[in-house]
């Protein structure tokens, strides 16, 4: 796969490029293929969802997300997320990714509970250790806060 152009600044395309790179010839990369050190510039904006325990939980919750959300959700279940926050919107379409087993990216404009109006973009990409059962989701998101936002 052609490496992501270093001039490409869009987080979701860079994360997708990395996902394709670690997948190699396989349809899906394995959970253990996602290593923070390999994407140190994107790791803070990323999250890793572990599906192996039944209840989806965050195995990794990027430092930028922890600060923006206000809590480090590492080890916590997705269902604990406050509704209509950036990260909750970023994982809301998880069922669609589980069903279709392909990377999906959604974005848009939204207002967070604190009144922050943001323009965001997110991506969720499936992971599988055996090529059949999905064992995790590699994702990421970032946003721009609107200048006329209440929370800005």
């Amino acid at each position, binding site marked *: 796969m052609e490496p992501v152009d270093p001039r490409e600044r*869009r987080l*979701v395309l860079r994360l997708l490029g990395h996902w394709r790179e670690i997948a190699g010839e396989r349809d899906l990369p394995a959970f253990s293929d996602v290593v923070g050190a390999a994407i140190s510039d994107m790791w803070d904006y990323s999250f890793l969802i572990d599906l192996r325990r039944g209840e989806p939980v965050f195995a990794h919750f990027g430092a930028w997300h922890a600060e923006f959300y206000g809590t480090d959700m590492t080890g916590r279940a997705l269902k604990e997320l406050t509704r209509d926050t950036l990260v909750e919107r970023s994982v809301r379409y998880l069922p669609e990714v589980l069903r*279709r087993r*392909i990377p*999906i*990216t959604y974005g*848009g404009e939204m207002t967070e509970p604190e009144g922050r109006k943001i323009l965001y973009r997110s991506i969720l990409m499936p992971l599988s250790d055996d090529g059949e059962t999905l064992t995790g989701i590699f994702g990421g998101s970032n946003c721009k806060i609107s200048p006329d936002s209440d929370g800005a």
Partner: protein
Amino acid sequence: MSLLKVFEIHTYRNGSWKIDSVFDDRDLALMEADRIDRSNRYSAVRVVEETFDEETERGGTRTIFRSTKSERINAANQARQQQGLKVAAPPPPIKPKKKKPTISRQLIIGTVVLAVILIGGMVLLEFINSLTGVGPRR
């Protein structure tokens, strides 16, 4: 009225199209399709726009990007389909092959024919002798 749009990247490999990824942003989908196309990992790539009108509950699809390779594949698929529609000429009937008699069979037949001629000749001679009275005295 709310018109929902998503953009699917389709990749072609091993003789079939597969949905590779889904975007809600046209520009991102086109950029990613271009990157996939340049990677040469897949035979071809295309971007399909799917629309759904929530008010009328009607949707549609159209291809907004095709790699040059995908155009060639589509043309080849169409040609194959057209060929498949033509009625193929029935194969010629298979004629049963005549078995050539083997040497041993020929030999048996020849011997039998010769024996019939000899015995027949002897019987005929005996018959003529009995009529003319010529022949060995008994």
